[in-house]
Every structure is written in C-alpha cells, then in structure tokens.
C-alpha cells in the first residue's frame, strides 16, 4: 500500500514538474529588427516579407512580434543597447554589418540573442549570431536565362559596392550566362553608392551603349531598362512592376530558413536553460532549403523563347536536387 502511495506521489510530483516545465516554455517571442536602410529598400523588404511569413507560421506555437527601426548606421550601438535595456526583446536582429556595435553590447545582455547579417562582420560566437544570404544558386540559373536571351552576346551587371554578398551573385550570374552561351562577354559597373538612382540609371545607359542587352540591375533603378526596352534582372525582391516591359526575372531572397534556424536555437536555449553558444562561422542556407527563388515577370513570360526557359528550368532543377553544384565565389568579379 505504502509502495502504491509512494508511486502515486512520485507520479503526481513528476506530472507537476512536467506541468511546471511546460508553463515555463515561452509562448511569445519579441524581436527588435534594426535596419540599415528604409523598409522599402529591396534588401530590407525581403527580410520583412520573410518575418511576416514566419509570424503567420508560428513556429513552436510562438506568438511572434517584430518592431523595426530604420536607417540605423552611425549610432548602431545605442540602438542595440536601448532595445536590450528595455528587457522586452528576446532577439535584437541587426540587418547588416553591425559586428562592432553588437560586440560592445552583447556582454551586458547574455540572455538576449543578437543577430548580424552578411558581409563586413566577424564571428563573435556566444550570443552573437551571424547569418548570411547567399543567393548564388538561383542567380546562376537566372544567368543561364540571360545567356540564352542575349543577342549581342554581351551581358551587364550593375551593383553598388563590391562585397561578399554581392560578389557571390555577380559571379554566379556571369558563370550561368557563360555556361548557357560560352560566347558571352560580361560588363560590370559598381556605382560606389548604396542609393543613387540617377547614377545607377546612367550606368545602365553606359552599358547599353557598350552593347549589353541583358543587364542584372542590382542597384535598384529600372527607368532606363524600361525606356530602352533592355532585358533587366533584379534581386532580393520581385521587381517586375518597376519596369513591366523590361524586367525578365528576379531572384527573391528568402530569409525563412535562416529565421527558423535562429528561432529553433533560441527555443532550445530557453527551454533547456543552456547558454547561447553560436559558431563563429556565418550560417547560410541554400536553394534546396528554400533560401531563394526565381520569379519570372508574368507580363513578359510569353516573349521568353522556350529553349531559354527550358535551359533555366533544367539548371534550377539540377541545382535544387544537388546534381549540380554552383561554386560560392566571393572574389571581386572582373569584366571581360
């Protein structure tokens, strides 16, 4: 009898403990997102779209909310510290090279997860998580399309600054175009500014004059593409509506696998009582994990030759299945 009572008490105690544990599992996740540019910048827009999908998906049953601060650059440390100081935020997510700011703040808030993204950072470990968007795989397949589409055998790329997270895309786009059409020559222009639509348009004009007829416009100005009816390609978001008669396709960045990984890490720490301990290497996900996609402009898709579309689809299929490996080339690209 005593044994049975003891068993009952033990069972009750265990169930009570389990009950306590589940009561302590987080039900809410509050994220502060520190953006380097405005919300409409393609890089930031792709992140916000991904956050919105994650909020709707409720991983681990979490009610997720995200607050944004835009145009943070010089005073980043203060912004991170202010968010962490409130104690209301579980993750402070910085969407660019914020390693210096995070390094100064992270030690004071060991229970907060800090995130930095892309090039220009250094691995800090501990509670400073580093994720990277590498969209070279879908960009390679988009390059295959451009290589098939060019009539002048000349493609162009216009970008902001050479950096690891732009070089990877430029190299992949050119490699894809050359695979589809070995006669392809590539032109590359860096406008050396994050935001300068006029200069960006002038760079497009200059490349068109030099013979480029398929242009990967990574600096976000499509007016000349539209006026001159040159095939243009965009990145990070679907840019079709910016120049409906000119945009052929866009590679959309999807942060979903990155965000899910971060939330899983956070959840594991919060439910196990462990400390944050991230590797110092950046974490990134490939096309097969859903980290990007190609969106062909619907208004133009009937004008894309069937063999060009088929070549792109074939490359896409091979890359996603793992049959084809696209090298991650971070070196500064060179024009032909």
């Amino acid at each position, binding site marked *: 009898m005593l044994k049975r009572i003891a068993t009952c008490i033990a069972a009750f105690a265990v169930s009570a403990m389990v009950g306590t544990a589940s009561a302590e599992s987080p039900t809410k996740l509050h994220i502060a997102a520190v953006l380097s540019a405005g919300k409409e910048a393609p890089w930031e827009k792709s992140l916000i779209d991904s956050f919105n999908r994650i909020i709707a998906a409720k991983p681990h049953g979490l009610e997720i909310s995200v607050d944004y601060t*835009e145009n943070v650059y010089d005073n980043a440390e203060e912004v991170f510290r202010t968010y962490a100081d409130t104690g209301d935020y579980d993750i402070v997510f910085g969407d660019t090279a914020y390693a210096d700011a995070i390094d100064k703040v992270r030690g004071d808030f060991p229970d907060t997860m800090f995130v930095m993204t892309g090039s220009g950072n250094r691995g800090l470990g501990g509670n400073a998580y580093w994720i990277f968007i590498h969209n070279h795989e879908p960009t390679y397949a988009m390059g295959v399309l451009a290589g098939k589409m060019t009539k002048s055998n000349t493609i162009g790329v216009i970008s902001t600054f050479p950096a690891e997270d732009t070089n990877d895309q430029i190299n992949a786009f050119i490699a894809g175009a050359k695979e589809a059409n070995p006669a392809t020559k590539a032109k590359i222009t860096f406008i*050396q500014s994050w935001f300068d*639509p006029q200069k960006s348009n002038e760079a497009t004009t*200059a490349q068109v004059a030099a013979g480029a007829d398929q242009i990967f416009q990574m600096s976000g100005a499509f007016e000349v593409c539209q006026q001159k009816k040159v095939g243009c390609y965009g990145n990070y978001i679907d840019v079709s509506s910016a120049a409906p008669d000119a945009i052929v396709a866009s590679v959309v960045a999807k942060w979903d696998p990155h965000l899910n990984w971060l939330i899983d890490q956070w959840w594991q720490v919060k439910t196990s009582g462990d400390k944050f301990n991230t590797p110092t290497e950046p974490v990134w996900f490939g096309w097969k994990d859903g980290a990007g996609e190609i969106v062909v402009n619907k208004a133009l898709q009937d004008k894309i030759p069937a063999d060009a579309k088929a070549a792109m689809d074939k490359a896409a299929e091979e890359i996603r299945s793992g049959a084809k490996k696209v090298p991650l080339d971070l070196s500064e690209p060179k024009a032909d």
Partner: protein
Amino acid sequence: MWSDLLNLGIIVSVLAATIRIATPVLFSALGEVTAERAGVYNMGIEGTMLMGAFIGWLATYESGSSLIGLAAALLAGAVMSLIFAVMVISLKIDQIVTGLALNLLGSGLSTYWLRAAFSNMEKVPGITVLRTWPVPFLSDIPVVGPVLFNQGALTYLAFLLVPVIWLFLFRSRLGLEIRCIGENPKALDIKGHSVAARQYAAVIFGGAMAGLGGACLTIASTAHFVPDMVNGRGWLALVIVIAGGWRPGWILAAALFFSFLDALQLQIQGVGIAIPYQILLALPYIAAIVALMIRRRASRAPAMLGVSYRRE
C-alpha cells in the same frame, strides 16, 4: 580596349550623359552663385536639394502632374532657404553652422515625411518620370543632335539659365546691387537701399533653384524617392561655384567638367577597361581639390562672403 571608347556611339553616350549628370548641379550652382554674390554662403544646398527632390516627387504623385511637382519643388527650396535667410540675415547666426543644420533638417524631415505619408502602404508608390523632349530637326543632326537636343525639358532650362543669370548679375541694376552687397554692403545701405531685402531675394532664389535641382533627381530621373538620394551633389555645387570663380559661364564649364569625369568613369567601367575604377570614382573629387587650390591663388570671391552685415 581603350579604342573601344573612341567608338562614335560611345562618345555620344558619354557626352549625352555628361549633360544629364550636369543638370541638377548646374541648377543648384547657379542659384548658389546668386546668393553668394549677395554675400551669403548657403552651405545648406544638399538638404535643400533633398527637400526639392522629396516634395517634388510627393506632389507629382499626389497630383499626377509633373508640372505641379516642379512648382512644389521650387516652393520647397524657397521655404528651406527662407528658414536659412531668417536665421543668417535677420538673426545674424553663423552662416556655416546654419547651413549644416539645414542639411540635417532636410535629411531628417524628408525621411520622416516619407514614412508618415506612406505608413499604411505596403509599398511606396512610384511616379511617371518626365520623358525626353527631342528638339525637332536639331535632334536629327549627327552627334550634336543626340548629345544636346535629345534631353529633358529641365536640362534645356538649366542651360538657358546660364546666360539669364549672367545677364541678370552683370547687366541689370538689381544684379549690380546684389554684387555690390557682396563687396561693400555699406555703400548700398548709405544710398537708402535695403541690404536685407536684396539678400533675402537672392538667397530665396538660390534655394528655389536648388529645389529644382533636387527635383531633377526624382521627377526627371527616377520613379521613387530614396532617403539621402542627393548623395553629395549639393556639396559638389558649392565646389563648382568656387571652381567657376563666381561667374555663370565658368560655373557651366566647371559643372560640365565634373560631370564629364563622372560620365567617363561610368562608361569606362561599362566598356570594361581594366583599370582600377576606384581611381575613376575619385577623379571628380581630386579635380575639385585641384580646382580649389588653383582658384585659391586668384580668388574672385565676394569680399564680404559669409560676413553678416551690421549697421554701425
């Protein structure tokens, strides 16, 4: 490789781009020289251009009319410089400090207003950009036609303003009075003419021109306003005024020279000539510093530039 640059199509492309790139800085520099000839050094051109770019874009979007957008940009530039004028002409606050503050105001206000105006929208909308206006017959002339006569209306206006401003400053009574204020305001004051009224007029005209210069970057160039998109052009306009020796004709030459270097570096990258493009990007600024050093020796700056006029 270099021979690729000498292709006629490429030369035309570089020269036409030079004219387009010069347009916004030319407006701002012509406005600034008028203010500086009246002894007022408006360093707030960058922020004024930014407000012109933003308000011009916003008004074009709201009204659907580029003309209303341009009028709004003029007005925005005038209001920005009115704030500046009150502070430096009436309140005699330091011109440099006030100019810098005006830049911060333009940057902060335009970004804030952008967010406030479109906070409920998923995506900031775009406007229809002004088309080019080829001049009949003239635009058909080989080389000269596509370079000079296949441009936007604002470009023609900016270039027409060069002789207009010159005539005004050097051949009109009010122009003479304005230049007199820059050299010896007391002389005008003694004759019973208001120094402050003329300075206000010159500064507000300068601001309106900077507003128009900013509007070139949105209404005549791109569908969207992007925060801080003026990107140093206001500062370049200030350098151009100095490099041009405070004379409209030389200011045009300086604006064309700097724009040519910019157009050339874009084309050299576009053609794919393998020289470090960073040197090309630095060229306009190196040229600006050299121009300042050369002008330092024979400065034609108005004697009372930057000095508040006080009656004894």
